[in-house]
């Protein structure tokens, strides 16, 4: 039988506020355990939540970026369950009146086609603390620093039909929240994580199959693998005559399998009800309009502008706009050197290569956009060749100064003196009579050999264009 996969994603993204959603405790990552957990976060009796304006602002910004409905009046509810990392006994969240309603996100697939994925809603809620299960003689250690950190939960429609689509959606969302500056998106630190609802059904069937929820996946690679493995498991199960149980499953990256998480617990019964400690939140149209006016240029718009202004290939423009930092870096380089295509090639090629190799990000690149722009300028004004430029780039990366200083100190300036180049060309032609004959016999390819030899003899400092012309003239 042919099967069809149905996937919906719930993304939890931590909002980049300085303080918590309902208290004035800090949200900074990595502090000593429980040093950023105040009476409100601990759920001590008698405390009251006071809502952080910035969390509302960020939620609205997100809604505007998705062109979604904005909850002009939103409200908070209590989701009740017992777990030690949630000392209040309930999570304050938004059930009936979320800050963001229906919207959509257009994703790009590998074959270049696009797909619109529906976004059901996005709501504000608080994060829980962390449980540490090791080293406490049979006890569990609780760190409540994270408790009360604002989260935006973004719920998609079950519109994705493959793991690849799910990853494309997650990447796009990740890029978006960072563009509009509402989250640092740091996946290692858990600032951006996702639950995937996965089910399969016979191709053509209208009703959904029973779904399993894969919890807390915090990398793009794991999302793809976890979904593929879960789909395989469900199909095997169904084809063997079994049935899928609706449950929460955990992806184990080490064993590369998903397994049931809450076998012993009974079905969740969260008993949502409106939070009596918080009044409904009303926002004004002026507030929304002002945020809209100050929204940064969004990735899709930026991409279209790059293609238009700098005559880039759509694919390159996509890569360059995948993060706001990279897009801004590129734009500085392109404007300063006046050549968008060369700028794109250097940012996507050499720079990204070094960043990957050293596992660092563009914000901490030792080669700044201004430095790269100067380097490209030196290629364009024929001070150095593209090949030498790579050498200069490496030296810049190592902190040896800017392009001009390196070209000067290493003596890399291109030889523009025709006499000096001519001498090299003459020498090489004289030394290779056999190749000269081949060229004369019509073997054009040999020209490359001569250019290569001359470049080598000049230690890369000859201008390849100039060499090409001169050799051609001399061999005629």
């Amino acid at each position, binding site marked *: 039988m042919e099967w069809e996969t149905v996937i919906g994603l719930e993304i939890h993204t931590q909002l980049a506020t300085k303080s918590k959603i309902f208290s004035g405790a800090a949200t900074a990552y990595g502090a*000593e355990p429980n040093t950023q957990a105040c009476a409100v976060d601990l759920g001590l009796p008698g405390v009251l939540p006071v809502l952080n304006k910035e969390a509302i602002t960020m939620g609205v910004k997100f809604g505007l970026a998705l062109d979604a409905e904005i909850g002009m009046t939103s409200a908070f509810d209590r989701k009740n369950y017992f777990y030690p990392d949630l000392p209040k006994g309930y999570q304050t969240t938004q059930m009936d009146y979320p800050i963001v309603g229906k919207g959509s996100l257009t994703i790009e697939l590998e074959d270049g086609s696009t797909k619109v994925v529906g976004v059901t809603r996005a709501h504000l809620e608080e994060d829980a603390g962390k449980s540490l299960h090791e080293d*406490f003689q049979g006890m569990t250690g609780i760190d409540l620093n994270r408790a009360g950190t604002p989260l935006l939960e973004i719920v998609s429609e079950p519109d994705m039909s493959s793991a690849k689509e799910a990853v494309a959606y997650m990447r796009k969302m990740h890029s978006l929240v960072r563009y509009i500056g509402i989250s640092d998106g740091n996946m290692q630190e858990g600032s951006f994580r996702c639950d995937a609802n996965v089910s399969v059904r016979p191709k053509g069937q209208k009703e959904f199959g029973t779904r399993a929820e894969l919890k807390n996946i915090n990398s793009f690679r794991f999302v793809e693998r976890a979904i593929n493995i879960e789909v395989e498991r469900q199909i095997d199960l169904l084809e063997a005559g079994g049935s899928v149980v609706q449950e929460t499953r955990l992806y184990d990256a080490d064993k590369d399998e998903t397994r049931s998480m809450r076998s012993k617990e009974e079905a969740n019964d969260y008993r949502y009800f409106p939070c009596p400690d918080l009044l409904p939140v009303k926002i004004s149209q002026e507030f929304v309009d002002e945020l809209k006016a100050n929204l940064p240029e969004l990735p899709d718009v930026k991409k279209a502008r790059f293609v238009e202004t700098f005559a880039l290939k759509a694919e390159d423009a996509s890569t360059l706009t995948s993060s706001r930092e990279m897009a801004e870096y590129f734009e500085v380089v392109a404007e300063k050197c006046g050549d968008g295509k060369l700028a794109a090639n250097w940012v996507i090629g050499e720079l990204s290569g070094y960043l990957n190799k050293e596992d660092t990000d563009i914000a901490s690149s030792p080669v700044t956009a201004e430095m790269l722009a100067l380097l490209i300028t030196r290629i364009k004004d024929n001070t150095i060749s593209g090949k030498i430029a790579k050498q200069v780039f490496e030296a810049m990366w190592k902190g040896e100064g800017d392009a001009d200083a390196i070209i000067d100190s290493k003596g890399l300036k291109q030889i523009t003196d025709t006499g000096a180049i001519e001498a090299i060309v003459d020498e090489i032609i004289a030394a290779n009579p056999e190749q000269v004959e081949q060229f004369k016999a019509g073997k054009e390819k040999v020209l490359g050999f001569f250019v290569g030899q001359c470049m080598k003899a000049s230690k890369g400092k000859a201008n390849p264009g100039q060499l090409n012309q001169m050799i051609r003239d001399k061999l005629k």
Partner: protein
Amino acid sequence: MSLDKNDVEKIAHLARLAIAEEDIPGYAASLSSILELVEQMNAVDTENVSAMAHPQDAYQRLREDVVTEENQREHFQKNAPEVEKGLYLVPQVIE
């Protein structure tokens, strides 16, 4: 809607409340009468009434995003039965 013994036991468990066996019929009757009241309200036609999230005709005041709380870990942890390396210790929650 009237609740039976099983319902009461489930509600008590969800709320992590220990209740005495002999008190169950009393709880069942009291809770059932609350639900009956709700059912009466259900009979009202609310078609054109927007839902009320809070009884007061007021809206939430917001605070600026500023860190105002200082670290009071030591103070708070005086109340905890057991702590280690700054963590609150609780009975193990996974097997």
